[in-house]
């Protein structure tokens, strides 16, 4: 199967060409690349420019009601509060340098919102991608076994997934993360990934593998009796080879489309988990925890108060989530329509 003459384009090149003609999808790819770059490298670059880190606290970046400063504010570069003899806050000593908070402060602690947004993007993307990866790792083999070979595995997998899929996913996640938090939270391979990211990603993956499994299973069911499969078998191909060379390439596009949506969905799921108060450790920013910092958890919902919170605290993380989900959604749509130009989306 080595096509070397340039006469006919292979399915991969053909798909790529269709994507290249679709400007919305191209824009989405560009946006996604920008978001990924900003999330993984942007934090340290921006940190070097403004000269502080995402964990630095600036008490002078909040007012008397602990309302954080708005975008583009210069605040005194000190973590100590200057107080007079009566305990009242007074301006910092003369000569204190000022530092720039590009998007303002993040909350009562007065940390840099921009840096936390960038770092939070990294955490959220890590959870999203890792969750989708775990789901594929578990779901695809099980889907192949249950769809292609059928039998007992198929019965167990199908019945079990049907029952579990009917139950609210978030309850499983809450239960599992409360039970497993102590065991799995510290896993982070040194400081490569923040505390709790591994746990949340793993759990999301372990409770969402049904979707890729069912995708693969459905495809295998329709394809396993196809003529070219019988042909391959009559030529003496092993079952493993048939699955790998003849069936799996058919499932791959659907899995790619699913993965893009899954990463988006996992990011949103992480927001939900933050609102329940489980998941990533408090000092690590995620887009979800930045929101729940303002709006509280479900046990203690925050009553929004414009004198203690700034609107930016809600708008910025929401906008970041929106852009990411929009890009991923458009990407999956684009891939889908490039793979199946005959279908009307």
């Amino acid at each position, binding site marked *: 199967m080595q096509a070397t003459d340039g006469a006919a384009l292979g399915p991969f090149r053909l798909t790529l060409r269709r994507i290249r003609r679709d400007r919305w999808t191209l824009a989405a790819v560009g946006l996604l690349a920008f978001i990924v770059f900003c999330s993984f490298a942007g934090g340290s670059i921006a940190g070097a420019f403004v000269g502080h880190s995402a964990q630095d606290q600036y008490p002078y970046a909040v007012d008397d009601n602990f309302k954080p400063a708005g975008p583009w504010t210069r605040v005194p570069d000190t973590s100590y509060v200057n107080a007079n003899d009566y305990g009242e806050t007074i301006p910092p000593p003369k000569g204190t340098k000022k530092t720039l908070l590009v998007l303002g402060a993040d909350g009562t602690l007065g940390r840099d919102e921009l840096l936390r947004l960038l770092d939070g993007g990294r955490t959220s993307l890590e959870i999203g991608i890792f969750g989708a990866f775990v789901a594929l790792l578990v779901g695809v083999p099980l889907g192949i076994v249950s769809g292609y070979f059928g039998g007992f595995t198929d019965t167990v997998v199908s*019945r079990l997934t*049907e*029952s579990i*899929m*009917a*139950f*609210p*996913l*978030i*309850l499983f996640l*809450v*239960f599992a993360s*409360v*039970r497993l938090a102590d065991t799995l939270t510290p896993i982070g391979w040194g400081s490569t990934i923040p505390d709790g990211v591994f746990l949340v990603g793993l759990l999301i993956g372990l409770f*969402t593998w049904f*979707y890729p499994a*069912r*995708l693969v299973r*459905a495809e295998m069911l329709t394809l396993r009796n196809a003529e070219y499969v019988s042909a391959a078998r009559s030529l003496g191909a092993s079952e493993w080879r048939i699955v790998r060379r003849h069936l799996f390439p058919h499932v791959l596009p659907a899995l790619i489309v699913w993965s893009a*949506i899954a990463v*988006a*969905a*996992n990011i*949103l*799921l992480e*927001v*939900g988990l933050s*609102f*329940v108060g489980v998941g990533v450790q408090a000092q690590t920013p995620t887009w979800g925890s930045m*929101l*729940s910092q303002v*709006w509280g958890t*479900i*046990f203690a*919902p*925050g*009553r*929004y108060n414009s004198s203690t919170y700034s609107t930016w605290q*809600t708008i910025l993380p*929401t906008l970041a*989530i*929106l852009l990411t*989900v*929009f890009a991923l*959604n458009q990407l999956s749509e684009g891939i889908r329509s490039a793979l199946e130009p005959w279908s*009307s*989306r």
Partner: protein
Amino acid sequence: MTRLLTFFLRRLAAAVFTLILMITLTFVLFWAIPSDPANFVYPAAQHLTDYQLAHANHLLGTDRPLLEQYASYLWHLLHFDFGTQWAGSQVTGEQQLVRLPIGPQLASAVPQTLSIIIGGALLVVLLAVPLGAISGRRIGSVSDRTISLVALVGICTHPMVVGLTLNTALGQQLRWFPPGGYCPLIPTSGAYCSGPVDWASHLLLPWITFALLFLALYTRMIRASVAETMHADYIRTARAKGVGETRLMTRHVLPNAGLRILTMVGMEIGTAIGVCIFIESAYGFQGLGRLSVTALFGTVGLDLPLILAVVFVITLIVVIGNLLVDTLYAVIDPRAGQMLRERESKSLAGVI
């Protein structure tokens, strides 16, 4: 008619099987996780003596053989007796244990959640049908792009944020709506508020919050269905014989989306209950969602009877909902009895 009956009975058997499976799974899971129910009886104690442990287990009935506990639980469940929860137990006297019954809690929680879900689902369909129709008629047009974008914004703003914003702004500051809380639908004398009008006014904002989240999914689906149908031969025929555009949409195009909506509604019931956790919290409801999270969080330990009751009721709602959808499906489309329902894709909203 017999065919429909067999179909219904088959589905019913599957539903009962699912219910028993979920209960058994919860039980097994609970046996596998080490926990000390005795802590519920002496929540203040740092360390329990052997006597206290044995005594507490005896009072709670957890010293009996596991299978006996399981059988007795199922037996009580058959009589709709959910038993008493472990949390909040109080020892009074030597052999007395005052325990809180679960039944009344569920009886007040379930209507709240069901009100949000049913009303919200109706609102979703009401909004999604016209929006999907507008989008689907001209894929890629400005109105199509706008509707998709707005729907996506609905998914990306978490119901907790939307709910709290609406509740604070419209409910508590502008006072256009009641400031949260739930009112029973059935008028009761002496209650702070009750009756259909109070009920609906307290639920309007939760419904909107619910609808915003699920709108994208349904709009998208109706859009796809409409776009697909617009090219069908019978639409050209209908146009050729002079059917107007409105009638064309309502009588020839949109009915095709009906079955898909029905399938989707059936699939998303569980998800809807999950979303209700946030909506209930934002509007100060004491519904099933919050009850279930409270049951799972347990600071003292896992409250097995409460968890079992919550799992049972949620599964029951999902199962009954699916049974209704399946039956409706079979009535509307007679081929459905043999057909496998498409269940493969769950939505983006489906996982929140």
